[in-house]
């Protein structure tokens, strides 16, 4: 097995589909997947969350904890049934009716996700399941999009990391040849009448204005409403972000305006 990519350094690049497979070999076991916690958080007005381990990108601005970089060291395996029970339990406790899995890339471990969605579909406590993805695996296989959106409660949020191939490679480590896959995912979702919107890390400290403009134009070419409804993300100083920035060679204090 190729060396497993962890925190991104300038110039690192990899095949993200290979990294997805490598990560799955660590975080998936049968229909079980590694989770570190189940809780409710205030985003989306309150949402039950299963925090999953493992991702196929290595964004230097990523907010998640270190389970992304060291998936072997974190989490416990939960079957889809156990994960569903824990998510519903958290939702019931805090009286929320939305759910998601977050922290890692939820589309890793396809078998687990599809079984989880099947179970969520049957639970009256959950009205909406928000699937936050980087779009890579959906772009690589349209049948995955069709499988996921066949569940009525699923709502997809595709988070783009860059407006051009070189920027994708520099920020995430995912080789620039894979730049089109998240856009393919968006087109598949659109063609299949999925409930979804697009987000993008357009923070001006990360994405220059001309790239942001190109990204908006690209989205508008696909569908003008997608561009208008774009959720523009900003980078916050989470612990994981600060460490990853340092590792990448950025000064987090300067980045967040605390040092000139």
């Amino acid at each position, binding site marked *: 097995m190729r060396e497993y990519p962890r925190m991104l350094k300038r110039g690192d690049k990899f095949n993200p589909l290979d990294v997805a497979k490598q990560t799955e070999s660590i975080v998936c076991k049968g229909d079980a997947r590694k989770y570190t916690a189940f809780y409710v958080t*205030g*985003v*989306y*007005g309150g949402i039950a969350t299963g925090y999953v381990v493992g991702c196929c990108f290595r964004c230097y601005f990523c907010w998640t904890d270190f389970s992304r970089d060291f998936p072997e060291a974190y989490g416990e395996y939960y079957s889809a049934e156990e994960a569903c029970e824990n998510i519903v339990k958290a939702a019931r406790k805090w009286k929320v009716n939305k759910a998601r899995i977050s922290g890692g890339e939820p589309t890793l471990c396809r078998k687990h996700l599809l079984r989880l969605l099947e179970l969520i579909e049957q639970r009256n406590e959950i009205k*909406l399941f*928000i699937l936050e993805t980087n779009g890579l695996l959906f772009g690589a296989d349209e049948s995955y999009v069709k499988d996921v959106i066949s569940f009525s409660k699923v*709502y997809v949020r595709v988070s783009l990391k860059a407006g051009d191939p070189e920027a994708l490679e520099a920020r995430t480590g995912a080789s620039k040849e894979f730049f089109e896959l998240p856009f393919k995912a968006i087109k598949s979702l659109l063609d299949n*009448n999925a*409930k*979804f*919107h697009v987000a993008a890390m357009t923070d001006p400290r990360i994405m220059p*204005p*001309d790239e*942001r*403009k190109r990204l*908006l*134009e690209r989205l*508008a070419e696909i569908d*003008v*409403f997608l*561009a*208008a*409804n774009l*959720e*523009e993300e900003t980078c916050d100083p989470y612990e994981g972000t600060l460490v990853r920035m340092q590792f990448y060679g950025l000064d987090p204090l300067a980045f967040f305006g605390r040092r000139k």
Partner: protein
Amino acid sequence: MSLKIKEEIKVILEISELEGEDITLRRLCSMFNVEMPSKLREYGDLPPRIALAIAYLDRELRELLKEASQDFIREKIHGFS
């Protein structure tokens, strides 16, 4: 199409840039004293971007949203130059 509804949707797109995820569409409109078009009321309990995205699947609303989006995005991209 009604110019008024198109304008209202455009305003909702604008204020969703300030808070599009963590409160409901109804609350957002109330905070900014914006009238929520009656056609969007059934989506009022959802976060604004999610509400708009689901409304976009409704054939009647789709055209309204598309036209409002064209104006909105033209102005937004123009702001870059």
